[in-house]
């Protein structure tokens, strides 16, 4: 596969324009319900805003070399890569990979990531994908703290 993501082509779209067409009929709730999507969106956005780091979430296959693939994807995740955190969950392979850029890793040490991963795998084993992801994100963003706290002395 040369493309990771497949989009449904619009009836009149050509191959070049198929991903640019806005189709009101697309339902985003085929995988997660809208309530679950809202939780994921809130968790990702609030974590990113409060910590100043960029959290992204990937759910899908990670191939045979899961760590390598996750690191590759982390480098393509946009924004400032050094301040980015990728949470990659592969439910089919039952693997979760957390990749932190250099600046992010200073604020979220590997030990904290491992603790978050532990709580996530516990939830996933019980069948709760969204809850596990949301809790893991919260743990990591709590660990990272606010960027302003790093600059000012306690007041």
């Amino acid at each position, binding site marked *: 596969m040369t*493309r*990771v*993501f497949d989009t449904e082509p619009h009836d009149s779209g050509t191959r070049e324009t198929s991903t640019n067409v806005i189709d009101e009929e697309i339902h985003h*709730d*085929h*995988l*997660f319900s*809208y309530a679950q999507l809202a939780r*994921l*969106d809130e968790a*990702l*956005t609030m*974590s*990113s*805003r409060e910590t100043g780091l960029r*959290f*992204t*979430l*990937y*759910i*899908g*296959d990670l191939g045979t070399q*899961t760590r390598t693939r*996750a690191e*590759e*994807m*982390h*480098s*393509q*995740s*946009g924004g400032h*890569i*050094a301040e980015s*955190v990728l949470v990659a969950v592969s*439910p*089919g*392979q*039952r*693997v*979760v*990979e*957390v*990749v*932190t*850029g*250099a600046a992010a*890793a200073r604020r979220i*040490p*590997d030990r904290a*990531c*491992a603790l*978050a*991963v*532990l709580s*996530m*795998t*516990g939830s*996933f*084993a019980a*069948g709760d994908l969204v809850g596990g992801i949301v809790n893991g994100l919260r743990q990591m963003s709590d660990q990272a703290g606010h960027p302003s706290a790093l600059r000012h002395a306690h007041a």
Partner: protein
Amino acid sequence: MNVAETLLVFAGIPLAIIAVMALLIFVPGGRRRPRYKSGQPWEHAPIWYEPHPDGPAGHVSHAALEAGNPGHASTGGPLGGARGTW
């Protein structure tokens, strides 16, 4: 009370309650999305969520990223993180 009334009260009412509960539980069509159970194969297309770019709080939306061109990707320095399996 005579026999009929006794039967209705002590057998009929519990049975009626059970029947109502069974109707409420089993008749509604069922889930549109199959519940995820650990160990099942994952048939959905991969999806990649990014945080909402700064905007009014409370806006419900998500964005799915495109896989970028690997040619211009740069590494983010010594990478950290963790992995886990279940």
